[in-house]
């Protein structure tokens, strides 16, 4: 029982990170109908920016008060990663808007290769370890003679709380602001939205920017949670987050979050109860199974095809 609860907590933490990345996929897919293959690598970029900024603050400026440091790192990472997201869209996707469907997918894969190798060249291929910054936690259940104690670490609390706050803010942004309205309009009918005076290109750019900002948050959390990053983390995290987006129903924001939590839970439970080696297979199999049997996901609307 204790083991189960502990895995549940770990799964929810991991799932929060996947959910944040998944939002980027689901928004982009919703608005321009393509898989932004480079999104996982934008997440990786965010993690690297967070690491560099953290080191700049602590070693160069000598900041020691951790909450302030993390807040600054978070904001800086979000801003700079957004710039990357914007650039990727501008370079690789906007010139191909209206082109045939494979073209942006190829440039997206190309961009993914570019980002990975750019980081590999400029920052080196070796992993970057960061010692744990936030330690300690709350013991929920005391361990007995034949059970382990259940720990809820402060790190996990921070990750889950940040995710909840961001999700709430983000939902407000989409449902209440004019930008959110413009975005939903573009999702429904881009041409009609343009006719009604919405700057479609700008809306799409902002979608990428928002997705990248959330990916940066996920990157920082990943860095703090695992303490190790390298240039290749984006691929697996990207595929899993995409799986989450599909599982939740692509195009649906709550779906992306729900899907992320489910994927996180499945992965953690799979590693906890079956085998660690095949945890990626579990995620990939779920992707295939969901797409084959439940193509519109849990919360998505089924696509109606018109001839």
């Amino acid at each position, binding site marked *: 029982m204790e083991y189960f609860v502990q895995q549940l907590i770990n799964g929810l933490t991991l799932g929060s990170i996947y959910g944040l990345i998944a939002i980027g996929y689901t928004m982009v897919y919703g608005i321009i109908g393509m898989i932004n293959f480079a999104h996982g690598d934008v997440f990786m970029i965010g993690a690297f920016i967070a690491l560099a900024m953290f080191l700049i603050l602590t070693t160069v400026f000598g900041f020691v008060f951790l909450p302030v440091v993390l807040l600054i790192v978070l904001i800086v990472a979000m801003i700079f990663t957004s710039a990357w997201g914007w650039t990727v869209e501008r370079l*690789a996707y906007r010139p191909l808007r209206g082109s045939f469907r494979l073209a942006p997918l190829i440039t997206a894969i190309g961009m993914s290769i570019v980002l990975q190798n750019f980081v590999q060249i400029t920052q080196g291929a070796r992993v970057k370890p960061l010692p744990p910054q936030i330690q300690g936690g709350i013991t929920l259940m005391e361990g007995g003679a034949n059970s382990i104690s259940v720990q809820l670490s402060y790190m996990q609390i921070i990750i889950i709380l940040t995710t909840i706050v961001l999700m709430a803010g983000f939902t407000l942004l989409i449902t209440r602001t004019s930008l959110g309205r413009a975005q939903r309009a573009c999702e429904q009918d881009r041409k009609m939205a343009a006719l009604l005076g919405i700057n479609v290109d700008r809306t799409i750019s902002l979608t990428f920017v928002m997705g990248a900002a959330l990916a940066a948050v996920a990157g920082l959390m990943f860095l703090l949670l695992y303490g190790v990053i390298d240039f290749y983390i984006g691929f697996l995290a990207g595929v899993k987050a995409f799986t989450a987006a599909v599982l939740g129903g692509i195009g649906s924001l709550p779906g992306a979050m729900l899907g992320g939590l489910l994927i996180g839970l499945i992965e953690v439970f799979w590693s906890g109860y079956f085998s660690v*080696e095949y945890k990626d297979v579990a995620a990939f199999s779920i992707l295939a199974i969901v797409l084959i049997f439940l193509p519109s996901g849990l919360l998505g609307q089924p696509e109606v095809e018109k001839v």
Partner: protein
Amino acid sequence: MAMNGSNKAVGTQPADPNSFAASVKDAATAGFLVAVLGFFFIGVRTDIAPGGLDLKMRWGAWIVSILVVFAGRLLLNLFVFKTNSPITQKFASSMPGNGRFAGAGKWMMRALFAFALILPFFFITFFPNKDRQFIDLAILIMTYIMLGWGLNIVVGLAGLLDLGYVAFYAVGAYSFALLAQYLDIGFWFALPLAGILAACWGIVLGFPVLRLRGDYLAIVTLAFGEIIRVVLLNWYEFTNGPDGISGIPKPTFFGLELKRGEGGFADFFGIAYDPIQRFIFLYYIIFVLALITNFVTMRLRRLPIGRAWEALREDEIACRSLGINTRNTKLTAFSIGAMFGGFAGSFFATRQGFISPESFTFLESAIILAIVVLGGLGSQIGVVIASIVMIGGIELLRNLGFLQQIFGSGFDPVQYRMLIFGLAMVLIMVWKPRGLISTREPSVALKEKKRIGADMVAQGEGH
């Protein structure tokens, strides 16, 4: 660095004859963007040091990268994008137009074929010092041409976007390696078996994804490819896991081994042994395999099944309405494409003598797909050109030693190859979204064959 690509995007703006100020402003924007993007990557470097991570500022590299992008962008603006007489105009007008190119294409195809036929002897005669290296490169390019042609059946003809093609390549390679290891089977017996096994896997993986289209199909095939790789990696007892399988036998020439001494190929024909003979032999094997792939594809296109593939690619719903069995059509495309991937895989195994799951990552799938798409979907000669440009171009980087003298000894051009590969994928796609060979000849025509321009082709939509 990545900024160079944005040139294309802005190139569509109307040209203003007196736009020096605008050019400078635009270049300054690009420079500023590089400053922002590059700060944490070019300007800062984190390294592992005793007692944690060490931070190093690289202001020099950061400023140089900004200046390079600013200057490059400014020059491009002044001479190409924001001028009424771009210097590329001359270049473009001297290129043959589509009509004239049609004849030249056929001629070029024959020339390429003739060159490929005599290639090993050409290199032996004219580059005696580097012949082995060049023939090895030719083998590599030929392998990618074959893989490209195989994938072209699935993506180019049937319009099914497959991002996991490398799975069949892996199945082919591992089939041969494992058959050789456990049952002691030689290359020529294993080759058809590997093809059949790969084709079976094509059906097994193709069956569940029959209902999926477009991007979803792509992502599921990617997942399948990764599953196969992870299984190969973790099934230690059977596949030897990450250590891979070594000692894979070499192909024989009608029972003759290409080895030194008694009973070898050279001994039998009474010629002097030379290690290059093995390379020539391997080259001709993959050359013939690739030709078979091409021949079968061209023939299949004219058969009802090939026409059904193309119909499927153009419009699945219309296809089904006309009574074509889309399930069988898709499965045959998957399995035949997979079969050629399997052949290429066993060739890869015998050429390397060693295989491990490392060789079958998603990147490999992406490269093969890039070759097919950049060459122009469905175009056989496009695959050849794209393979030569992309694979040959990357390998060229290995020979750019003189750059080290310019940039210092720490500069290694090889590490930039994947970066350049990715950039080339993006740039070629933005420049020519339909691929290098974007016109298409219809497989069947009523009276005369007319080339179809890129804008008339609605391919690979998967809708």
